[in-house]
Structure formats: structure tokens, C-alpha cells
């Protein structure tokens, strides 16, 4: 049963947990993100936050948040860990970016919708400044690695990542503005 659940996507596991209260489905989800939880929490473990109490508490909190979760688990878990260790609250993806990702996901099997959405995206990308457009094209369209992009721009990979993340947010905002026009 556990192997079968591991083959399901996060959305299907969440649906089973919400509708049928399958504790095993929630367990599969928790197990799927357990290594990431350990890796994220590892720098925060100390005498006040021992692993024997941190991980069961976080697991229990995440389990209770899964019943009402609609978004992505990684965002929920990251926010939970940051809140647990008293770090600055990290805002997740903006609504505009979530809507755009949802539209792209729904248009996956509809060629007409895909063509229309691709046209709108081209228009939004055309509104970007040339530096951002060049970086976006190099990473997403030309598939250049982050390390190479960072070296070419004399930045570290985290800076390139943050820049790319901001560009995505900007494009999503442009798409939302285009929908209201």
C-alpha cells in the first residue's frame, strides 16, 4: 500500500487525505518531504531544539496543516520550519504566480489553450527589460546552468536564482494585468 501511495502525486495524496482521511496518505506525503525537512531544520538544531522534539512536533503540525492544504507542500513546509525556528516569515509564491502556474497546468492537454497562453506569455516577456529577458532566455530557453550564468555575470548562483525568481514574478504580474485589460 505504501509503495502504491508513493507513486501518486502530491495533489492526489492530499485529495485522498482530505476526502477519506487516509492517515497513510498523509504519511506518504510526510515521508516524501522528510529528508527536505531534516535538511532545512538541521542548521537550526541545538540544545533548545533537539531533534527528538523538533521533528515529531513539526511532523504533527504539518500533518494537521495538510487537512486544509490546497497549495504546494514545499511552501507550507518551508513556512512552517521558518516559523518554528523564529526566522523571518518568508512569503510564498504570489497569487499571480500561482494563477499562472495553474493556467499552464490546465492548458497542458489543450493545444488551443496552449497556443493562446503562449502568445500571451510572449507579450508579457516582451515587456521585460533586456537584461532580464536575456537572463531568462539563457536559463529557461537555452538551458544554461546556473553556475555558468553566475560566472558570466560575476555573481553567485543564489543571486542568479533570486534574479530569475523575480523575473518570473514580474511576468506573472504582467500576465495578470493583461487579463484585466
Amino acid at each position: 500500500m505504501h509503495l502504491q501511495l508513493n507513486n501518486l502525486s502530491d495533489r492526489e495524496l492530499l485529495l485522498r487525505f482530505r476526502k477519506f482521511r487516509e492517515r497513510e496518505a498523509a504519511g506518504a506525503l510526510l515521508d516524501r518531504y522528510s529528508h527536505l525537512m531534516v535538511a532545512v531544520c538541521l542548521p537550526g538544531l541545538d540544545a533548545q531544539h533537539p531533534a527528538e522534539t523538533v521533528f515529531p512536533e513539526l511532523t504533527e503540525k504539518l500533518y494537521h496543516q495538510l487537512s486544509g492544504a490546497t497549495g504546494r507542500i514545499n511552501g507550507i513546509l518551508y513556512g512552517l520550519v521558518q516559523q518554528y525556528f523564529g526566522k523571518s516569515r518568508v512569503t510564498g509564491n504570489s497569487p499571480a504566480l500561482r494563477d499562472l502556474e495553474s493556467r499552464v497546468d490546465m492548458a497542458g492537454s489543450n493545444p488551443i489553450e496552449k497556443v493562446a497562453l503562449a502568445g500571451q506569455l510572449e507579450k508579457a516577456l516582451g515587456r521585460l527589460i533586456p537584461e532580464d529577458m536575456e537572463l531568462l532566455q539563457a536559463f529557461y530557453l537555452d538551458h544554461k546552468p546556473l553556475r555558468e550564468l553566475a560566472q558570466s555575470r560575476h555573481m553567485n548562483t543564489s543571486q542568479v536564482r533570486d534574479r530569475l525568481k523575480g523575473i518570473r514574478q514580474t511576468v506573472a504580474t504582467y500576465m495578470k494585468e493583461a487579463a484585466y485589460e
Partner: protein
Amino acid sequence: MNSHSPRQERVLRIFTPVRCLNRDQLRRYHLGQMTGVEHHLVEQHLVECDLCHDALATVENPANVESYQQLSTQLSQYIHREYAAGVQPVARAQKQPVLKPQPHARRSFAESAQSYFWTVVFLAFGGGSIFLLQQHLKNRPPLSSLPLRAADAIVLPAPQGAALGDYQPVTTDTQQEVKPLVIQTKYSTRDTSHMSAAALPVAVKDTAQKKKPVKDSALPKPPVTDSNARALIANATPPPAQKETPKEPAKEEQKETPKEKAPEPARAEAEKDDPPAAEKKETTRPVNGDDYVYRSAMQYQQQGDYNEAINQYRKLSDRGRYAERARYQMAICYRAKGQKGKARRILKDIANSEGSMKSLAQAELSTMN
């Protein structure tokens, strides 16, 4: 995914979500063991996922690798243990002792109430069935008992050639001691004090059997069914068959002839002479089918249900040793119903025949005329 796919597809993939890194991907990315396409997919996900980015940053620190692997394995085992199917969480398990008794108590109460209900229903059905059985036994028509009593009072005439013992009326000690039972029909005018003779046949028979066999001439005895018939018993002439009976067979029949067939005066005298002997031999004969039908018919006749009595007599009118007596009683019933034509016709048939009831039929005919 490759760089040769159409631009449209690649533009859409900018905003296509990618799943988080699993354990193997995290390790291989750290070790640089990924293909180009897979490496780009992971980096594309790292751009949008803070969790995986921070996790990868932790894993890239060599000081954290060992503790990461150990804690990751332990947490995975913990989750497998705690969140397996059918395992309740710790927080819920602590509350269960408080919450458990209520549903259990409700379930036990429901089960006990159901068992009580079915027990009450079972008892009600059992009691009701017992009550109905008692009522049925109480109100059952006493055909099996009353005809025996009626036979005590009625001395049946023995047809010729029939075993004399078959016509012995069944009597019991209590019946003899308490009061002789007499059939009271609605047209009976006779005083019950005179009817005591009807209860004597057994005593008379027994004493007479001991002392002297009764001759065959004393065998035929008219049935005492009503007052008219009883009144005719004393004056009744012996049937022709009695005169025709030879004396030699009489010796054989003396052994079989019951003393109850003796005339009433003789029986009265015998009772006076030897009353203890009358109580010595009392036999209870088994009732066969014709006896039962005849007695039930007599019972119906006594109760005034002449139609049913006629039906019962009709069953016997064409067969068996009760045929002639049944037809005679059927004529009596018709007369009581007012159908004197039918009664007269049947009595004529009996009077014209050479049976034992000939004299009684003639007497009835003369009475009706």
C-alpha cells in the same frame, strides 16, 4: 526536455511546476551525477522552491552530511511507524481513554436494549401461544369424553350375530358412585330418579355372568335415547330374532352375553342381590370408529343439532352394525325437526325389515299416527 523543442513549449515550461527533489536527486545533484536535462530541471525547480534550495545548501556543507543521513533515516522510520494505516497519533491516543468509554457505553447500551427487546418479544409470543393453547383446549368440543358418558346412559341394542362384549357401555367408578348419568334430551319428560336403572347394566352383567348365563332371548335391548324410547323398553316385545335363536348357540353366547342386556327388572334385582359384585368387574372397551361416530351423533342429537346428528347417522346408515340403529335415530331426529314424512318413511323401512329395531320402529309409527 531539450533545447530543440519549439519555443512555445519552452516558454510554457517556464511556469510549469516541477516536483521537489527526492533523496536520490538531492544526493546526485550534490555529487554532480546528473544528466544535463535532469540537472536543468532540478535547477529550474531550485529557482522556484525555497525548501529545496535551502536543503541543498545544507547538504552541500560536508559537516551536515552525516547527521543529515542519520536524521533523515530516523525521521523516515518514525513517520512509517506513526503514520501507518490504523495507527492513531500520540495526541489522539492520550485523549482516547477519556473519549473511548462513551461510544463503548452507548454501543453496549444499544446492544443490551436490543437484547432486552427481543427477550420481551419472545416472552410475549411464548405466553400468548400458551394462553391460546389453553383456550383452545378449554373450548375444544368434548367429543372424546362426552360420548363415553352418553353411552353409559344409553343401552344399545345388540344386533344379531354381533359380539356381545362390544356393546357393553363404558362406565367408571366415579360415575357409578356419584350419580348415574342420564341423557337429558329436550323432549325428555322422565324423572331422573327412574333413570338410575340405565346406569346399572355393568353390575347386572357381572353378577349374572357369575351366577347364570343370560339367554339369548334377553340380548336385544332397545336403545334408550329419549323418554319415548325408554318408555317403550319395558313394553317392547322381543324381536323375532330372539324367538328364532336356537338354544344350543345360546350356550356359547352365554359366555359372551353381557348382563347389561338383561331386562331392567332383572338387573335391578341383581343389583340388590349382589352390589359388591357389580363393582368388581368393570371393563373399559376401546372405542372404534363406528362407536365414535355413533356417540358423536348422539351428542349432537342431545345438543339439539339435528342436522349434524343426521349427517353422522347417515354415515352409519349403510354400513356396520350401527346401520339400523343409526337409521332409527335418524328418524327420531327428523321427527324432532318436524319432518315427519321422512321420519315415517324411515321408520316404515325399519318396521318392514327383520332387524332388532323393528318393534321400536312400529311403536314409534303408532305413536306418530
